[in-house]
C-alpha cells in the first residue's frame, strides 16, 4: 500500500518552509525520517533530489520526490486522508490557495526584507508588510483558525507568522504585529502556538534569534548593485 512506503524529509531546523511540512505530517500522524541539511554546505543527496532549486524542504515518499512546500502540503493531504487540511468545497479550496500565496508573497518576503534592511528601505518594507497583514486579519472573520474550528491548510501555510515573524521583529527592530491593530490575528497566533502538535514542533527561540541576527547582518552588509 502506497501509504506504508518510507517517508523522508530533508530539512533545515530554522526554515519555516520545512516546518510547515512537519506540522502537516505530525497532525496526520505520519511517520517520517528527518534529515537535517546544512543549507550552507549542501549535501550531494539534496542536490540530487532537488536539482532545480537546490532548496529544502524535499519530501520523499517511496520513489517519489517532491519539492516546494505548498506542493508537498497538498500531496500529503491527498495521500494521507486522516485529519484533512484542505477544505472540501472548491471555492474554499481556492481561497486557501489564494491566501497562502498572498501571505507568502506579500508578508513573508516583505518582512524578511524589512528585517534585513536599514533606514528608509526597512520602513518602506515594514509598511508594506503591515498593509498586507491588515488584509489577512480580515480573513479570520471571528474564526478560531483559518480552517474554522480546527487547524487547516491555510493555518499551516501561514503558521510561520505566529513564531518566525515576532522573532524577525525583534532581530530587525520592526513593529508589525500590533495586538491593538490585529486582535483576530493575535488571538489566532495564541491558539495556533498552543495546539499540542505545533507546540512540540517549534525550533528553540534563543537559537533562532542568534541565527537570524547572523543572517540579517550578512544580508545587509552585502554590496549593492
Amino acid at each position, binding site marked *: 500500500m502506497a501509504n506504508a512506503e518510507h517517508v523522508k524529509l530533508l530539512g533545515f531546523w530554522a526554515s519555516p518552509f520545512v516546518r510547515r511540512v512537519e506540522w502537516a505530517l505530525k497532525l496526520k500522524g505520519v511517520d517520517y525520517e528527518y534529515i537535517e541539511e546544512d543549507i550552507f554546505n549542501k549535501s550531494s543527496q539534496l542536490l540530487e533530489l532537488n536539482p532545480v532549486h537546490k532548496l529544502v524542504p524535499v519530501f520523499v515518499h517511496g520513489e517519489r520526490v517532491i519539492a516546494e512546500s505548498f*506542493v508537498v502540503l497538498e*500531496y500529503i493531504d491527498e495521500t494521507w486522508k486522516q485529519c484533512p487540511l484542505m477544505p472540501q468545497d472548491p471555492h474554499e479550496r*481556492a481561497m486557501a490557495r489564494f491566501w497562502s*500565496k498572498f501571505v507568502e508573497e506579500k508578508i513573508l518576503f516583505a518582512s524578511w526584507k524589512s528585517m534585513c534592511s536599514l533606514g528608509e528601505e526597512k520602513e518602506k518594507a515594514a509598511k508594506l508588510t503591515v498593509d498586507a497583514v491588515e488584509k489577512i486579519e480580515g480573513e479570520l472573520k471571528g474564526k478560531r483558525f483559518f480552517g474554522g474550528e480546527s487547524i487547516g491548510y491555510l493555518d499551516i501555510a501561514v503558521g510561520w507568522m505566529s513564531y518566525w515573524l515576532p522573532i524577525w521583529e525583534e532581530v530587525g527592530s520592526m513593529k508589525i504585529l500590533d495586538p491593538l491593530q490585529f486582535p483576530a490575528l493575535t488571538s489566532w497566533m495564541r491558539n495556533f502556538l498552543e495546539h499540542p502538535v505545533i507546540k512540540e514542533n517549534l525550533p528553540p527561540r534563543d537559537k533562532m534569534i542568534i541565527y537570524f541576527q547572523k543572517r540579517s547582518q550578512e544580508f545587509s552588509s552585502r554590496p549593492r548593485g
Partner: protein
Amino acid sequence: MAEVKLLGAWGSPFSRRVEMALKLKGVEYEYIEEDLGNKSPLLLKYNPIHKKVPVLLHNGKPIAESLVILEYIDETWKTNPILPDDPYDKAMARFWAKFLDDTCMPAIWQIMWSKENQREKAIEEAIQHLKTLENELKDKRFFGGETIGLVDIAANFIGFWLGAVQEASGMELVNKERFPVLCRWIDEYVNCSVVKQNLPPRDKLIAFLQSRFSASSWKY
C-alpha cells in the same frame, strides 16, 4: 445573468489561460474586457487585493490568480481534466506550473528590463531555466502527455507571447538550434485547436509590445 463570468484583458497570457481551460471544458461564460489603464469598479470590487485580471466569477463568488482559478475550474467542471488523478503526478504538474510563473517568467522579463551590462547575465539565467523546462518535456508530446494539461496551459507565455516579445524587441532567446525540443512543443501547441482559438492576434500583440518597449528607456 450568466453563471460564469471572466474579467480579462485581450493581451494577458494569464487571462487567456483561464479562457483556454473554460473552452477546453465547454463551459459557457460571459467575457468582460478590462481596460487595465482604467480599471473598472467591477474589477476593483472583485479583486481588491491585487486589482488584476483574470478574475473568475462563479455564482457571484470571485476567484483571482490564474493558477488558483485553473485548479478551481478543474475541480468544478470534470470534462477534459487538466490535472492528473494521481497525487504524485498532480504534484509534478503543480511544481512545473509554479516553476514557470515564479522562475521562468521573471527571468525572461529580467532580460527586457535589465541594464546593458546586466543583460548577458540575465539571458544566461533565462536560458538555464528554459533548458530545465525543456528537459522536463523530453519526448512527450505535451507537458501533460498526449493532451494538454495544467503545465501546457501555464506555459502559454512560452508557447506564444515569447515569440511576440522576441519579434517586438529584437531579442532572441528561444530558437530551434538552442531549444529543439521546446520549439517542437511550441509548434504542436499553437496548432492545437483549443490553444489556437485562445490567442490574441499576433500583430496586434507585437504592436502593443513595441509601444511598451519604446516608451521605456530600454533599448536592446
